[in-house]
């Protein structure tokens, strides 16, 4: 388990080094564009973590497995944090480039809705005392909210937005300098490893809390000291 923490620290350090010292300044935005190295990875993780939560929510609803609800619960705070960071770094990028911290643009608004979905999930789950019922009810919320993910992703195509379109795509490749792209991808992998490490660490506490009445918990060496 500490493996993912180690990997994430190494990747983020390499990504920061490349992002600040190897990647060239942008011809239009100068040094200001370097916000991309946290903005894009945080935004991708905000959507990706939601999809992983939806995956666990489906497992929980269909197969009624205990651990799926715990995984959803462990992922939500980290997803909410990355969504907040996507909005925050976006505001700090929008201000110098567009002249406004915030605009009611389709991309920004749908990302804000994603933030409310995370907060809504956390609030709903903590408002129901019985954990199994809380899992079930909040899984439904997560699954309904998943329609928002393609809306965020395609918002820059479907609507005329101030937010720029995707700089990289599977079909046409990348429109960025390759060192910029590599630095961004390394940062993304670092954030991804961070998310795995933190969710696994958090789920261990959730499992202990929820299974505290079982024999195996009472026999754990950490508990019996």
């Amino acid at each position, binding site marked *: 388990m500490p493996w993912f923490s180690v990997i994430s620290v190494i990747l983020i350090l390499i990504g920061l080094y490349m992002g600040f010292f190897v990647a060239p300044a942008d011809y239009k935005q100068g040094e*200001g564009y370097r916000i991309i190295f946290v903005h894009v990875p945080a935004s991708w993780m905000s959507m990706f973590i939601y999809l992983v939560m939806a995956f666990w929510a489906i497992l929980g609803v269909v197969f009624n497995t205990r651990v799926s609800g715990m995984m959803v619960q462990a992922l939500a705070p980290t997803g909410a944090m990355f969504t907040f960071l996507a909005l*925050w*770094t976006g505001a700090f990028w929008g*201000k110098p480039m567009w002249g406004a911290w915030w605009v009611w643009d389709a991309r920004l608004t749908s990302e804000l809705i994603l933030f409310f979905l995370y907060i809504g999930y956390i609030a709903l789950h903590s408002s129901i005392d019985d954990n199994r019922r809380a899992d079930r009810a909040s899984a439904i919320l997560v699954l309904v909210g998943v329609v928002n993910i393609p809306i965020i992703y395609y918002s820059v195509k479907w609507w005329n937005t101030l937010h720029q379109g995707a700089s990289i795509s599977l079909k046409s490749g990348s429109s960025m300098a390759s060192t910029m792209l590599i630095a961004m991808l390394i940062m993304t992998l670092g954030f991804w490893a961070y998310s795995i490490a*933190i969710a696994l*660490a958090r789920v261990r506490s959730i499992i202990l809390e929820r299974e505290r009445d079982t024999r195996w918990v009472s026999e754990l060496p950490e*508990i019996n000291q």
Partner: protein
Amino acid sequence: MKEFLNMGGYALYVWGSFGMTALLMLVEPLLVHSRRKTTLRRVSRLVRSKSAQSLKNPSANI
């Protein structure tokens, strides 16, 4: 160095973004760690009090 920190005039925006990201990604692991410690303490207290109870009253063993 000064030039680097100045970020071509975008210092507030670049460091505001990286600063908040660093802050949250350092605080979150600390919170998870302290939650782990609290949980271990709480659950072991619970387990201990339960085993003390079942010693007094063996028929109520769970």
